[in-house]
């Protein structure tokens, strides 16, 4: 399978990134080079292999259900690009009609 500039547009939209036409062209070629190298994995029979998501055998981790101090609102908001009282602010989401 080969990555087209259309695929790059689609993935860029999913990733919330924008690129110039030149960057898109370059990315298309780089992704093709890298992904075609990765296709070597298709040569391995893994039909009966369980996927490995976590390298250490861990069961569910529980903690006592008690309140512990969290981040204070001011600390949590100190890096916010936009703030109003104890809220993050963003540009208007719904367009004016």
């Amino acid at each position, binding site marked *: *399978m080969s*990555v087209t500039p259309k*695929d*790059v547009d*689609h*993935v*860029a939209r*999913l*990733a*919330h*990134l*924008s*690129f110039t036409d030149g960057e898109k062209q370059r*990315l298309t070629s*780089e*992704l093709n*080079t*890298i*992904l075609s*190298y*990765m296709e*070597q*994995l*298709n040569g*391995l029979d*893994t039909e009966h*292999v*369980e*996927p*490995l*998501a*976590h*390298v*250490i055998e*861990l069961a569910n*981790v529980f*903690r006592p259900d008690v309140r512990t101090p969290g*981040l204070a609102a001011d*600390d*949590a908001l*100190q*890096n*916010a*690009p*936009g703030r109003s009282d104890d809220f*993050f602010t*963003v*540009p*208007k*989401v719904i*367009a004016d009609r």
Partner: protein
Amino acid sequence: MHPWVTYDSTLRALERGETTCEQVTEGFLRTIADGTRLNAFLSVFNEKALDRARAIDRKRADGRAGRLAGMVIAVKDVLSMRNEKVTCASRILEEYVAPYDATVIERLLAEDAILIGKTNLDEFAMGSSTENSAFGPVLNPVDESRVPGGSSGGSCVAVAAGMAHTALGTDTGGSIRQPASFCGIVGLKPTYGRVSRYGLVALSSSFDQIGPFAANVTDAARVLQVIAGHDERDSTSAAVAVPDYSAALTGSCTGLKIGLPNEAFGEGLDAGVRAAVEAAIGRLRDRGAVIMPVSLPHVPYHISTYYILMTAEASSNLARYDGIRFGHRSAEARDLHDVYTASRSEGFGAEVKRRIMLGTYVLSAGYYDAYYRKAQKVRRLIQKDFFDAFASVDLIVMPTAPTTAFKIGEKAADPLTMYLSDIYTVSANLAGVPAISVPCGTADGMPVGVQFIGKQFDEATVLSAAFALEHGAS
């Protein structure tokens, strides 16, 4: 004469009353100021470090000092220190200030270490050369026309150039071990889960581990001793007892069974690197180690598996940089969607975008099974190779990197070539096992590292072999 300073030499001088923590810290600050061209640091805690050094001098006088009293440590700028910036060497976090301390920072401070500054890296730890920093590349102090390796290049150079006793780095696919090899120092990646990642900016959560750089194995063991251990704030940190690592540093390797995987000594390995690594293995054999062949048949698949999983996890982790709660927000954005897209596009560098794109692609509908799920399956086969090998040996030995430090710019234009240079380091992250790089000589005047890979949670044996080599080689 090496420029680095071991904690041992400082301890002896402190104990004899020949120096103070303040003087030691001043010395390191001078070296940092004289070496700014190396670009190892993104921020330096001048007054703050000196204040702390004076406080620790008083504690020493009262006999109340902790286990790392007077150890001066540099910290990779991906770890949170309350009220200090964490930039990840990215424009998107250029102004970000951490609201809390990482667990490793808390533990170092509790033992009276002196933190001297935050070090440069490949942006978001994505790279193998520290050329991808938004704040300029780091130079290799052994040969300034060469890269120091990456992604923890700044931390590595801080130690190699005598700007700190030790440093913390992070290792997702070799980012501690490969620079240690390129600059001629010791770098240790602990077992996945051995060290808490609380307060570490996440890159690739099933691979990331924090570990030390040091001028010698003893100092690396000292740092690990303090930072290792379970932390309830990181649910992936393992509740496995931490042994006394200093007890493992005996200098003996008699009877130690070390596996030699043929697959790691094939095509692409520089002849000079091979010669230095084989000579080191010969010295261990002379000192009583038993060298045995082992097989890691999936080595040819390590890079593909690693880069599929790593980019997938990174693309998910980096989704949080959206210009809303923290980080850069584009001044151009008119609506909410613009805030996301423009902020991210302006804030991330080229390699970070490339990996987000790759990771988003392999996770996207229609490709998830072919790439992501396939790679997770191969990862199990890779881990099984290691577990099978460890049924008959205590350790596996291989080069840390296929070459010595390359020239700045040499691989920057070709991402796949850069990825392939991680061939010997990604293995330990894929399998979740501990590994160390320790100097074993030079090739054409540049340092070469040999890598010992151990069983899960058996950092003691890894350190033991590295110490035996360090002391047999001198």
